[in-house]
């Protein structure tokens, strides 16, 4: 019997968790930025700036361009946000507790990740402007190259569990976490997670060389919704990483959900901090690295861990 919540409760709990997660991403980003720039002491402003920026963006008028694709522009951040929420919904927080735990939860998560490419492309296509368009197509190359290493790295975690349900994947880590059993998996997953949420060094669609890329014509709640959805996607990826690689709710002393939160926070710090530490990659060498380095490594990961299971 797979667990799930009633729709109303499901939506409410995902909304709360998503809001907390996005706020956490914003605060960690602020702290990491201040630390990297050597600004001295970190004040209370790092906690207050995110809601202040939200208020500012709410008051800014949305920007329109001539002959834009209005419905597409409206749907793009909403689609990204919806996908992030779906990805978050399949992550279990404790044994027998999940918003939605289908028997193919892993596939639902992978689908949500794959569709991000559509959301970003729509976001770049809609304004009918040059820089967003280049950003959209660039993300196409990035997303296609990242899909396979992502799937392979995560698939290795399904092998010991003999199931595609995320609850079972976490359940199977009772004796040993997957990060120990399959050491190559988590690094690849983190790189791919940063890439799918186009964050930091892999922020090619919204890059500085494209002066904001797909977000170049965004203002007001367009920008707010897009940034919110992006941070939510990053949070969802970190949460799934904590579940699939770091043992989810397993841990001594503290209750399961607390361990989940701590592990998610850990991965979130690593992923968010890359933005202030690593330069943006160039798209071509990155595509080559994905196909010739990450895929073979992920395959080695699968086959070695598979062989050890037998």
């Amino acid at each position: 019997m797979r667990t799930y919540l009633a729709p109303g409760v499901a939506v409410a709990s995902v909304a709360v968790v998503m809001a907390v997660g996005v706020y956490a991403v914003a605060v960690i980003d602020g702290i990491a930025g201040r630390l990297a720039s050597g600004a001295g002491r970190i004040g209370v402003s790092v906690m207050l700036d995110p809601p202040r920026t939200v208020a500012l963006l709410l008051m800014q008028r949305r920007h329109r361009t001539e002959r834009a694709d209005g419905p597409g522009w409206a749907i793009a951040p909403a689609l990204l946000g919806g996908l992030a929420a779906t990805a978050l919904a399949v992550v279990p927080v404790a044994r027998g507790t999940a918003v939605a735990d289908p028997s193919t939860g892993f596939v639902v998560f992978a689908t949500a990740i794959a569709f991000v490419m559509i959301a970003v492309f729509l976001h770049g296509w809609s304004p009918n402007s040059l820089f967003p368009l280049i950003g959209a197509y660039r993300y196409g190359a990035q997303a296609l190259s990242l899909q396979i290493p992502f799937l392979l790295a995560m698939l290795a975690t399904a092998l010991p569990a003999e199931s595609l349900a995320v609850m079972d994947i976490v359940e199977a880590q009772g004796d040993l976490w997957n990060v120990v059993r399959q050491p190559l998996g988590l690094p690849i997953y983190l790189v791919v997670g940063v890439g799918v949420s186009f964050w930091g060094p892999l922020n090619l669609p919204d890059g500085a060389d494209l002066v904001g890329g797909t977000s170049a014509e965004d203002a007001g709640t367009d920008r707010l919704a897009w940034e919110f959805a992006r941070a939510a996607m990053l949070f969802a990826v970190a949460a799934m990483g904590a579940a699939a690689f770091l043992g989810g709710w397993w841990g001594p002393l503290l209750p399961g959900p607390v361990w989940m939160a701590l592990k998610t926070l850990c991965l979130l710090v690593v992923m968010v901090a890359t933005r202030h530490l690593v330069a943006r990659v160039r798209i071509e060498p990155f595509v080559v690295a994905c196909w010739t380095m990450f895929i073979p490594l992920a395959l080695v990961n699968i086959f070695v861990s598979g062989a050890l299971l037998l």
Partner: protein
Amino acid sequence: MLGPLGAALAVFVAATVAMVALRSASDAIAGVGETAPERVPFLGGHPPEMHAWSRFHARYYVMALLFLAFDMEMVFMYPWAVVFVREGGIALVEMGMFITILLVGVLYAWRERALRWA
């Protein structure tokens, strides 16, 4: 009553609708109305001469074909992962052969400079 997939779908629909509503709410707060020059796409100061919408040369199309092949492989790997431990070594060998054939394809694409485009 909806089942787990139904719950996930409900979350997806609710989140999408909520974000569209948020976006539209700003029209009430911040107002609408822009003149024609305010709607010109930004290129640094000059207006654009032609529409950005064009048959953009997505030079990575060869890599996209390679992705298709691996995506089909992933379709087979999903059920394979579930039954792997039960089937034992023969499953490992069979999938290994499949993957090796595909990796030869990647090697070919790499040698043919399909992964580089500028």
